[in-house]
Structures are given as C-alpha cells and as structure tokens.
C-alpha cells in the first residue's frame, strides 16, 4: 500500500518535471510545479506509513499507554503539513510574478522573456 503511494508520488514528480521543462507557457509550468509538489508530499507521507497501524491521534481505540506500538510515524505528517502550506505560498508567488511578466511583455511564453538568457 505504501509502495503504491510512493511509486505514484515519484511518478507525479517526474510528470511535473517533464511538464515544467517541456512547456513554454508560464502558467503551465506553474501547474506542473504544483503537480511535482504534490508528488513530493505523497512520497513523504508514504515513508511515514507503517503496516497495520493507525493515525497518530489518541482516543479510546488508541490509549496513550500503547501508543508507541499502535500509531504510524507522526513526524512526516507534521512535515508534510508544513510543506503543503509553503507550497501554496510558493504557487501564489509564482502566479504573481507570472502576472507581472505578462504585464511587461504581453505574453506568457517563456521564450519571449530573454533577459536572463545566456
């Protein structure tokens, strides 16, 4: 189960990289980066998964005394929670810069923006 999620995550990273490198349109590149970001998050969550265990929330089903033997690793989940939020911020920044570039050149084609090309 964790293996499927992990392979899917790695595939999403590859798809995102392919999309970001092969598209000329800036908006499509941003979408591709979001896909790759989702892939990274999936891989991280899959690493924390352990067979036959449950979510790291203590209640009647998972008493605190036997928590260490019943729950999955909570650290990757906390990490991914952070990563998702930062991912949203990065996407918003990319969109803002894309708007700015569009305003300057009237085009979202990356080959029109040659200032940093060498």
């Amino acid at each position, binding site marked *: 189960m964790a*293996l499927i999620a992990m392979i899917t995550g790695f595939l999403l990273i*590859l798809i995102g*990289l392919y999309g970001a490198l*092969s598209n000329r349109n800036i908006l499509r590149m941003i979408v591709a980066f979001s896909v790759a970001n989702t892939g990274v998050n999936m891989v991280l969550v899959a690493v924390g998964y352990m067979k036959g265990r449950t979510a790291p929330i*203590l209640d009647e089903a998972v008493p605190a005394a036997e928590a260490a033997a019943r729950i999955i*690793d909570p650290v990757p989940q906390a990490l991914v929670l952070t990563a998702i*939020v930062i991912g949203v911020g990065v996407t918003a920044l990319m969109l803002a810069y894309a*708007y700015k570039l569009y305003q300057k050149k009237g085009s979202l084609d990356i080959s029109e923006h040659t200032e940093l090309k060498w």
Partner: protein
Amino acid sequence: MIKRLTLLLLLAGIGSLFAGLVMTYVPDETLNLTASYYAERTAEDLGAANIVTAIIVTYRGLDTLGEVTVLFLTAAIVGLVLSQSRGRSQSTGRTQDNMASEDELTPPPTTQRQLPPPGELLTTGTRLLLPLILLFGAYVFSHGHLTPGGGFQGGAILASAMLLLLLSNPARRFGHRLITLVESTAGISFVFIGILGILLAGGFLDNRILPTGTFGELFSAGAIPLIYTLVGLKVGAEFSSMLVSLSETEEL
C-alpha cells in the same frame, strides 16, 4: 528535437534514481527514537490527543513560527508585486482598475467591460454558505488538538469563504486594513504567548502556561487551542490577502 531527447534522458536518469530508492526501501517495523518519544510523552506532558498537532505547535513550535513568518512574507511580496504593477498600469492608462475605495462595494465604471450580474442562485447560495464555512473553519482550528485539523487547515477554510465572496462578485473590493489588523494582532499574540512560555513554563512556546485539563476535552492541552486559533486567524488572513491581491489584478 534534440531538446526533447535531452529532457527524456534527464527524466530517465532521475527516474532510475527514484527506482533505486523504491527498490531498496524497507518500511520501519517500529517507530524511531524521536517518533516514539512523541508517541509516549505527548498525552502525559502536553495533554494533546492529536500528536501531529503537539509536534507542530509545541515540540517544534519555533518552526511553526518560522513557517507562519514565511507565509506572511509571501503574502506581503504578492501584495507588493501586484500593487506596484497596478500603479504602473494606472499611470500608463492601460487599465482603469483603480477603484480601491476601502470597505465598500464600488460598481464597475461604465466605460469598462460589463460583467453580467451574479445570478440569484449564486448570491443566495453565497449568503447561505458563508456563515457555515466560517463556522466550519473555526471548528477545525479550535479542535486542532483533538481531531485531524488545525490552524493551517482551518485558515485555508476561512480563506475559501473569501474566495466564494470573490467568485460571487468579482468586482467586489475588500479593504486591506481589516485583513492586516487581524493578521498582525494574531501574529503578535502568537509571539507573546511564546514569550509567556519562557516566563511561566519550560521554554519558548511551552503550552503549559494554562492547565492541561482533562485529556480529550475542548479546553485542554494548555495553550495549544489558543495558539492554533491564532495561527488559524493569521493563515486565513494571509491567504485572504493573497486572494484579494490576485483578484484585484482582474481588469474589469
């Protein structure tokens, strides 16, 4: 053609690296040292039922403060970049998107593209759903120590209410003043609670400045619900300000 070939070669290389990682991956049988410490000590020390929340708000609280700061910077930069470009486009007269009167709904000037009025269904639906979405967001961030959820998720839900408002009437303009006020108040209170932790309890952002209460109840886990409420308000305000900044670029 040669570009595409290089790209495929590059992806094949990265893919083989990933394949090596997957092939040799052996899932852990037991929790590692850090995770088992968190699993064993959380309920006893902090009184929080959700261990992920305990890690984010208390054990790694400083990181969360940094994360919130990164979000704040992002929102500020988005606002800065977009407001600069708005000012320039006004001066060159390319757009007339300059109705930034605060806190009130300005009708789009008649010279511009006329938007069709939002339908009755959308208006009524927004009015019906908005309080429910806000209530759900508040529920999610105030129960962060008991259920899956917390400040970041609840804040995103609050911002989705803002998104619904903007979708139902794209010409609506919000004052940035209220958003900034909520955001800065929440941020300062977050740091203040952290400093109280140094004075009254074990260290910065220690949640035991308030009694940990009965395990599993709403008013338990010390300052965690308080901190997560502040984080929720702050994240909601930051996402809202990004949404408002992006929506103001729309040329009506």
